């Protein structure tokens, strides 16, 4: 009984409606930028996320310059060597230095999801705000399209499109953007619906502002907080999703290094040289944990009522 009573009376209950987006009031912090830095610098999730992201970004940015060997040059050492001073993570079946491949292999792991999610956000977000504002049949058409696209299983969709269009970073970026677009669009539409009826929107309409201006100057700033929080969460999913695709051998052409591809290739000698697989795996995990922690910090700030797990990939 005591447990139940405590649960009932517990302060700060965040029991809200699961599965719906409620922005009862505009973000209490009028200046989005201030709230943004506050959320990142004054919560442990924000600090830990920034630190982790900093470590991975440092490896990705400066790694290629520090690589002791060429990441693609074969036979820089004996084939399949284990860790040594010359080759800290050993060498692979072609005699390439695994450490150098690790230092150069993070670029696409970050870049492809970043571009894909940004693309999905720009297009999906614009459609979502537009649908929320115009309502009526245009809203219905856009929403139905989002629902339909979101009903297709993501990995299956990407696999099929890659099968038809060929495997390259460009195709993978575009198809991953298609996967994320309807999900982001639905969230932005739901968030924007809560602010389209505000007086400042009516005032802008009375002034005779164009629709594009109203969407961009009146609505977009007022959903920026939740949208940024959602963006960081999508980035987590994006990193994991693209890494899975790379692991399945899609998106990267063979000689160029990539952490996901490395895990797939080097797991064949997992028992012999486990470091070769573990180190790139740690790189991917650091990256997605970092984005997830940042997402958590921002979500707690901007969407306190929204359960983060209601609209997953």
């Amino acid at each position, binding site marked *: 009984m005591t447990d139940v009573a405590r649960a009932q009376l517990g302060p700060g209950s*965040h029991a809200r409606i699961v599965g719906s987006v409620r922005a009862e009031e505009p973000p209490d912090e009028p200046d989005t930028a201030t709230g943004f830095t506050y959320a990142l610098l004054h919560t442990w999730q924000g600090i830990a996320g920034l630190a982790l992201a900093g470590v991975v970004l440092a490896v990705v940015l400066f790694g290629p310059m520090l690589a002791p060997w060429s990441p693609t040059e074969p036979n820089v050492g004996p084939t399949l060597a284990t860790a040594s001073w010359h080759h800290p993570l050993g060498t692979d079946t072609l005699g390439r230095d695994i450490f150098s491949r690790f230092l150069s292999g993070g670029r696409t792991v970050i870049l492809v999801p970043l571009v894909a999610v940004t693309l999905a956000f720009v297009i999906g977000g614009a459609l979502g705000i537009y649908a929320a504002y115009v309502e009526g049949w245009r809203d219905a058409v856009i929403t139905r399209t989002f629902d339909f696209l979101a009903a297709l299983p993501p990995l299956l969709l990407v696999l099929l499109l890659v099968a*038809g269009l060929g495997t390259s970073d460009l195709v993978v970026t575009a198809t991953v953007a298609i996967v994320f677009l309807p999900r982001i669009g639905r969230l932005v539409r739901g968030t924007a619906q809560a602010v389209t009826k505000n007086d400042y929107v009516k005032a802008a309409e009375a002034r005779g502002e164009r629709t594009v201006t109203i969407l961009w100057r009146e609505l977009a700033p007022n959903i920026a907080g939740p949208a940024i929080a959602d963006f960081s969460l999508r980035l987590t999913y994006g990193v994991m999703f693209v*890494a*899975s695709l790379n*692991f399945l051998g899609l998106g990267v052409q063979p000689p160029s290094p990539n952490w996901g591809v490395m*895990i797939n290739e080097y*797991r064949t000698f997992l028992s012999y040289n486990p470091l070769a697989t573990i180190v790139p795996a740690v790189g991917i*995990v650091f990256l997605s*944990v970092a984005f997830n922690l940042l997402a958590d910090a921002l979500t707690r700030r901007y969407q306190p009522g929204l359960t983060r797990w209601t609209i997953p990939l």
Partner: protein
Amino acid sequence: MSVAPAAGTRPPGSLRRPPAWVLALLKQFGAALVTLVAISMVTFGAVNIRSPESVARDALGRGVTNGAIQAFIRERGLDKSIEQRYWDWISGFARGDLGNSVITQRPVADEVVPRFGRTVLLIGLALAIALPLALAMSLYMARRAGRPDEAAAVVATIVAASIPDFVIGILLLLAFAVALPILPVSSAGLALGTPSEQIIAFILPTATLVIVVTPYLARIGRVAIREALESDFVRAAVLRGTPHRSVVWRHAMPSAALPLVSATAVSLVWLLGGTIVVENLFGFPGLGQLLVEAIQTGDTSMVQAAAAFVGAVFLAVSVAADGIAVLLNPKLRTSR
């Protein structure tokens, strides 16, 4: 009074309209059917973007004559219009004729059907373990709301949810096949091995999938159960002096079940992607492995069949979950 119809008997004429839950189920089923058709179109369209010549070249290998390529195209019907070919494929599919592999020339069905069963079993096993586990975890977290160990559990679920499925699989391989060599590295024993080898082949793939979905389900469950525990009807039950156990299991849990089942339906998207990755990681001879293999070899008829079956598995399980959610929803159960 005794001749009057008993209370609750429907007045004449109301039989025409089926109860709300039947309509809701039919709607779910219809939506699934539309999605299945869409998947088949996307599958067929994506696979057939390539020109007949390039399909033939992939199948016949390098250094074949133009005549051989033209003969292949004619024999396969690749010179027909795309609508005609889609219709041929889909009507053959409905009759149970999946065609022959472009590469091996053997019937696609021989390869797809046994793998289909294994993949369904893998997903079913993973859900059968993950759901009770998630329920126990969410109950634990919900009842310790606000205590430090609840916060620790929340952090653990964040970290667990950020680890990609194939990394979880690799970690399990490292632990149970390399450091502590008690399980096989590959699940290939499933196809030809002894019964005990077949059972062992399921352990690591199932464990990986369970670890992938459980944190997500547990987080939804935690919120749902806390919401139920804080509701007025639970408060009323507590004030009536209902025993604690009964409050949790008879009053709170049925109301928390609905979001949990809906979450399961959504998590299937995840589980399906996870299955494709996990099958490739462990060499598990299922549909996901076949699909990726067929894409890499350019076996178009195999890609089509495998993708259609993967889509069908996905929809069948999500219709089942939606159906359970409809039946659990008291609003749909009572209203007509």
